[in-house]
């Protein structure tokens, strides 16, 4: 077991750093995003539809004068659709792209906790076949005997851009 783990440990260069992750719950699973990418957490509000957008893009909202798209992570991950309730939250994430900083909101069931996780504790996800969603999974980590799925924010939100072009491929590592 010990040996096996060593094989899939992340590259040397990333070892030794610690990062804080904000975690949230969706369909009973716990997911984590780099806390530095989190701009704020808001309640759900009805967004304005964007015509001909993928189903998981719920629309855009006005965030103090900025137009921010809202992505339903459940739909993005192919989970069953859930009703939006008073406890549904939107996590506003920011990340750097080629065109400067982008801001985007993701709809999740509930916010859970903040963990400090050392990079070396992170395990790579097993290679999944033909699953689009593995690309933006940064790693898996065990916290209190429970698995937390760490998400790569930039990859998660950029990926959408490619998909909307309908020539999306899964070959990328």
């Amino acid at each position, binding site marked *: 077991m010990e040996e096996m783990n060593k094989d899939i440990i992340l590259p040397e260069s990333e070892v030794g750093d610690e990062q804080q992750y904000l975690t949230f719950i969706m369909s009973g699973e716990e997911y984590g995003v780099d806390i530095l990418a989190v701009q704020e957490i808001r309640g759900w509000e009805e967004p304005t539809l964007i015509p001909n957008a993928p189903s998981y893009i719920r629309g855009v909202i006005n965030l103090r004068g900025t*137009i*921010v798209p809202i992505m339903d992570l459940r739909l993005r991950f192919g989970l069953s659709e859930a009703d939006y309730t008073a406890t549904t939250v939107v996590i506003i994430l920011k990340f750097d792209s080629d065109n400067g900083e982008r801001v985007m909101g993701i709809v999740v069931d509930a916010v859970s906790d903040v963990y400090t996780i050392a990079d070396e504790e992170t395990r790579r996800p097993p290679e999944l076949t033909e699953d689009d969603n593995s690309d933006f999974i940064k790693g898996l980590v065990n916290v209190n005997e429970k698995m937390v799925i760490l998400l790569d924010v930039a990859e998660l939100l950029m990926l959408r*851009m490619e998909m909307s072009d309908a020539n999306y491929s899964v070959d990328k590592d």
Partner: protein
Amino acid sequence: MSVDLSQFHQVFFEESFEGLDVMESELLDMDPSDVDDETVNNIFRAAHSIKGGAGTFGFMPVSEFTHVVETLLDEIRAGKRSMEPRYVDLFLQSVDCLRGMLSDMQDGNEPETERPAELRTEFETILGMAQEEQPTEDASAGGKDAGWIIDVKPHTDLLMTGNEPFRMFRELQELVGEGNLEVLANTDDIPELTSLNPEDCTIHWRLTVTAATPVEEIKAIFEWVEDECDLTYTPLAGDSANAEAAASSDDAASSGDAALVAPVADAGAAESTAPAASAVQSEASPADKPVKAAKAPKASKKTAESSSIRVSIDKVDSLINMVGELVITQSMLGQLGQDFDLSRLAKLQEGLSQLEQNTRELQESVMKIRMMPISFAFSRFPRLVRDLGGQLGKKVLLETIGEQTELDKTVMEKINDPLVHLVRNSMDHGLETTEDRIAAGKSEEGTITLNAYHQGGNIVIEVADDGAGLNEDRILKKAIEKGLVPENNSLTPEEIHNLIFLPGFSTAEAVSDISGRGVGMDVVRRNIQALNGSIEVKSQRGVGSTFIIRLPLTLAILDGQLVRVCEETYIFPLVSIVESIQIHRSSLNHVTGSQYVMQLRDEYIPIVRLDEIFGLRDASDTVDEMMLVVVEGDNEKIGIVVDDLLGQQQVVIKSLEQNYQKVSGISGATILGDGTVALIIDISSIGKNIVPVKRKQPRSEKAA
């Protein structure tokens, strides 16, 4: 003394570019045979400021080059020689050259040296000839080798005129280099302390320059005070050591009781001038120190590109006024809010409407700050037309109308290239050759007219020529050749004219340097459309053609018509709406599959159902009464079906692409009064969705 001058570099560059613009436009306006003194003075002043600034900031290549330009200008100004057309050309080339050098330096690069050197030689040849014509002061020969003694005897009111001798001495020191300047103050004429008027300048100076320097350059420094000072220039004989000895002994002789060096003069109470002299003295003393201060930062630092605009003080004042009013309204509302009951509702409403007015006014004046007269864009054309006319051998007169029309700076920057393209096109293809013009019975000189005016919320820019007009037969032939239109078509002349905007269309028989390089009118149109504008062409054979550009005044705000489709609110740019009518479903006719057309008076217009193309409603849902908004985009009328018309309002355009991506049919988003987002319809791309079924393009593919 070590002020970081680099912080002023940006200002210097901006001012210099402005100065160059002034020089250029004055040169172009000038008639060499009849030169107005004021014109030459303006050009001279601009050149002089650039030289001075460049010298101050240590941009020696620029200041040296400007110097020769200035010397020739000075001679013309002084009436020593008259302006000739070749000088004008040379000056114009120098303006270009300087512009290039300055922008090189602005980017943090070393300016090019080849071109200035060439031009400098030309100037020197001209200037050299002059020296033969008029007897050279024998003085200058000596001065070139050894140096100069300059006696500066200011009139007592020198300081009152705002001149500061210290500045001139410092400039002189920069010119000759540290250690090569000695300043001696003669305090003989300083009166007793009791009768001393501190505003009078009673000190005289003797400056000893121990470096070989042309006297013109020294004179240029004292140019501003020529009338307020008695200046004598004496060449220094022999080497510098002798010179210094000579100078000091001379001094001792002339001012009996001892030549006082500057620090002593300080004690002598002429407060403002003496420390100045002492500063020069003390600075000059650590001789032979490498001149480093000015040069080091230039090489290392890349100038941050920050564009700025000049705003007239009126605009700023009105802005301050508005903010003042806003503050008053705010405090009134604040007070009202502290203890509010229903009896004061009327007061609250009044306050709110005042707030609304304040906000609107404030918004308008803030927008005005970005507005600049279009003369900024037009100003480059006289030069362009002049140069191109020479190149093409055509006589062209440029007329500009409405130069004071204001538009947004961003729009102006982006409209520049299309305008240049259009003017080039008009000159190359539009105007006939001089012979053809004479043969056609027209005046020899062709005219290009640039006209700008406001129309509604738009600015209209017309580029007109009185040339041959578009050749419909040739355009049509070319279009058929290129497969852009079918052979047996029935295009109206206007439609033929608009073919020139199609990609890949160029009628130029020979690809010339000036136009016809493949990037054609389609690029122009695309650029203009990117600005939410439109372009059309009107042409008449033998009379000329006119390109009409319509642009929104600003990219930030749009007059919008709010419409409702299902539960969603969308915004149409008001400018593109032709009319809105109520229709019944039965008046729509199917053409192919899902495509509708409708007969509107005597034409058929294609119909787009917003609910369908945006996927808002199930196809099975039928609505009988609907609103049809007829819009015009790309010179093509389209009817867009919506559920209802709501109000009209100005909306602030927000980017959808910043955080999302381009959405077909949508040009942006805005925030409505209730804080929700509404999307703005992009008329031209909505139009594109239905391009394949345009009635006059039989080769069309089926609508997707």
